[in-house]
């Protein structure tokens, strides 16, 4: 009898564990055979697109190169300024050390993929290596195994993001190498990585006045941050018929974005929309500077790099801001911008920085600036 009771007790307990495992989200494996894509006849636009999907897919780059501090956030940083500053860094002694130009940057990117320890960004080295050894795997070796053409595609993508014309060769017809379609954990199509591309992909501007389309089938989205919360904007995209804006019809906006859209794309679009300025009356547009929609625009607009060494400006009137996120909290940084004379960094003079940024930097611009500065690597 004891035998049966104890077995029965075990069965109930194990049943609970098995049931609990069933209630968690089930990440289904992708069992389809890898699809091979011919790169024969690929033009440079195609190479850039292939590089982007490799960056987020097979290359597994975004596993670490994201905003979580594992590696520099390549997709968010200002690559146009970063690449030249890396090549000029005295710590860098690799193949492109001291050189300039897009070819040198191509060599630098390739070297960083094949020999990641050639240059380790401060703060991102292996523990105990004093930033001399990179934790990054070599991308042309297992388990990633990018082919030379695939590495060229990634280089083309990064050069394009840096505002350069890609210098990598196109795959020749006789080599005609093939690339595996990147794995995207079961999703049909790799996510795009910037907001405007996401808006193109889901055709938002066809109905909304985005990218100067002038469309008015859907409501005006400029200044939406003043009318809706972040959660409400998300809801309006994923469940558009839940609430219909006055003067517009239900049923016009697709309801399947929650299935179609990648999470990262949704976040990009929401961030972009929340940063959109109010549509200013026509007569005022000539007088007022428009609201900045990216961190770099904010930095340009308010001239931050004139005093601070921001990605290669080498200005030293104000303190260096690289790695500021590790020295200050977000609130402290905001306070240093809006009330700069409250605390003066050692070695710097008071009253050098304008003290009206609290009023002149718009509510939609401040988070962009803070996000950017908080994530600046050392």
């Amino acid at each position, binding site marked *: 009898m*004891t*035998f049966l*009771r*104890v*077995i029965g*007790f*075990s*069965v109930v*307990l*194990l*049943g609970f*564990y*098995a049931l*609990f*495992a*069933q209630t*968690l*989200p*089930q*990440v*289904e*494996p*992708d*069992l389809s055979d890898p699809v091979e894509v011919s790169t024969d006849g690929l033009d440079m636009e195609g190479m850039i697109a292939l590089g982007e999907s490799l960056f987020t897919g097979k290359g*597994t780059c975004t*596993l*670490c190169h994201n905003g*979580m*501090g*594992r590696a520099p956030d390549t997709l968010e940083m200002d690559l146009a300024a970063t690449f030249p500053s890396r090549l000029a860094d005295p710590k860098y002694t690799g193949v492109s050390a001291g050189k300039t130009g897009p070819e040198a940057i191509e060599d630098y990117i390739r070297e960083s993929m094949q020999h990641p320890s050639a240059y380790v960004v401060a703060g991102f080295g*292996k*523990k105990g290596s004093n930033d001399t050894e990179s*934790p*990054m*795997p070599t991308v042309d*070796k*297992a*388990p990633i195994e990018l082919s030379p053409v695939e590495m060229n595609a990634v280089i083309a993508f990064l050069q394009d993001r840096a505002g350069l014309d890609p210098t990598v060769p196109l795959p020749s017809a006789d080599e005609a190498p093939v690339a595996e379609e990147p794995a995207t*954990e079961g999703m049909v199509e790799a996510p795009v990585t910037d907001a405007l591309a996401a808006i193109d992909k889901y055709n938002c501007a066809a109905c909304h006045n985005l990218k100067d389309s002038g469309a008015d089938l859907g409501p005006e989205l400029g200044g939406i941050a003043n009318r809706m*919360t*972040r*959660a409400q904007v*998300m*809801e309006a995209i*994923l*469940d558009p018929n839940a609430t219909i804006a006055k003067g517009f019809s239900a049923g016009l906006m697709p309801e399947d*974005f*929650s299935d179609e*859209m*990648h*999470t990262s794309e*949704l*976040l990009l679009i929401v961030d972009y929309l929340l940063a959109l300025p109010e549509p200013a009356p026509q007569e005022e547009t000539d007088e007022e500077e428009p609201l900045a929609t990216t961190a770099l625009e904010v930095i340009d607009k308010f001239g931050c790099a004139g005093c601070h060494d921001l990605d290669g400006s080498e200005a030293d009137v104000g303190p260096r801001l690289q790695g500021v*996120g*590790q020295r200050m*909290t977000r609130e402290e940084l905001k306070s240093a911008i809006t009330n700069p004379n409250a605390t003066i960094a050692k070695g710097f003079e008071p009253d050098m920085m304008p003290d009206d940024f609290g009023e002149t930097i718009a509510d939609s611009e401040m988070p962009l600036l803070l996000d950017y500065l908080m994530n600046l690597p050392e």
Partner: protein
Amino acid sequence: MRFSTLFAIMAALTALIAPDLLLAATEEVAQVLEGAPKPSRMDYPVIAGISARTLAWIMAQMHLFLAAFVLAVPLFAIATEFMSVVTGDDRFDNMAREFMKITMAAYSLTALVGGGLLLVLLVFYPQLMGYLIKVFRGQMLIYAALFGMESVTLYIYFYSWDALRRGNRKYYHMSIGLLLNTIGLTLMFVANAWTSFMMSPAGIDPSGAITGTVWEATRNPLWNPLNLHRFLANIAYGGAIVGGYSAYMFLAEKDPVKKAHYDWMGYTSNFIAIVGFIPLPFAGYWLMAEIYAYSQQMGITAMGGILAWLFIIQAVLIGTIMLAANYYLWSGLMRTDRGAQYAKYVKYIAVVIVGGFLVWVTPHTLILSTAEIQNLGGTHHKILGPLGIMPAKNTAVNLMLVFTFMSFQMFYRSSRVPVVAWAGAANMVVIALYVVGITNIAGAGIYGYITPTVYKVGASVPQVVSTLTIIIGSVIIDVFMLRGAISEKVHWGRMTERSQYALFVLPVAFTWLMGLMGYIRSSLRTNWHIYTIMKDNSVDAYIPTVGDAGNVITAVTLLFMAVMVFVFWLSRLGQTKQKGTEAAS
């Protein structure tokens, strides 16, 4: 047996793991082998529609469960035997013998399932096994030889128990036990070398050609972290299984004397399980740190990728274990007449244990659907999200360990009245230890929130130090303070049946937990037999969903528990005498 003789034996065993330390015959082999095989899907035998992976998974897991138990029990059997020599209390000696009796019944099953596992691997994965045999060469034969030696010493150790029980002969017996444990641990270390080699290969070049010695392949980056983790886990696991045996026997027995014996055995087993369990999170932390150091991708796959949800199940299992172990300890307060004095604190300890469990089970970084993001209003929950990060979890686990120790301490003190004059002052020191330690744990946890990541990890060190200081400091003070104390009677056997089921939760939850962690560890290799060296091109080269894995783990655990309860039943049957035949025996 002299120490020098024992040392020589241990040195010989160490050399046996890596024969080429003595025989330098590696160059010839390296020339023969060009690289790791690259099997295509057609190279994997398909036999009668059997799922090769599921079969190998079940056999490997069953073998691991049995082997972990069989290797762990002699470790604490010899410790208990040593206790009997030190204290002169025969109860320890009898209990150690009974521990071994259960092991004997499980030993042949371990060998049987191990042989089955080998057969399955050779039949379904011939190329992988062929390659591993080439890498580890003679070590596999030595493993078989060690297994033979383990069998011989195990039988001698158990059957010579009564013949070598008193006087100097007891030391001979304990020497045999020491030899048995040395061989057993060596066996485990050798098997761990093969497993860890598949995760972090060494002694070969990127194509898989053998360039190093067997010792280099053995001493791969994850070997030692895995050795330590499995060593501690085996002790906790073995303690839990023997606790399950004691609970089973307690429930089945009607005789109050025997009930008292099994109650005491259950208490001791629970103690062993918790002692093995307390350092386990720290060994796990080291293993994961080494995995990150070896391959950041592998570490992220485990902690922030598709396997991240599994750590929520792990938290539920560990929470169950902590709650059950504590409930059993609180029930034990009724064994002493002064226990009621301490019972009033139980509700506070329960709040901490349940609270700690809830914090531990709170997720942080997970793969979310867009609809889930929408519901949350972001990628992390606004209020509960902060509880999902490491400072909160480290604080929770340290407090759970401290308060579990407090449950032990309450029972220990409930049967002893100190007679030393400085008892009051000593109590104040103990209270101060708890207050300062807990404040430090909480303070370091809060500090973890306001400091950059690099210091966040560092903040866990003072927490661990605080936990260990409380435990070690309290034990030292109690030992001296309660020396010569007035002992009050402990009514062994005065326990509820419900408490025994709580004790039985431990082996069930531990077994499922071991199955889960094995699944995670194997999944880290993703679609590689040998990570980055030999690709798995079989139809099963993917990570199964957590639900599918849960079904397999549940089935294996159920099978194992059925086998173990059958072993317990057999053990009880062996003690049962037919009426009227007592004199004949």
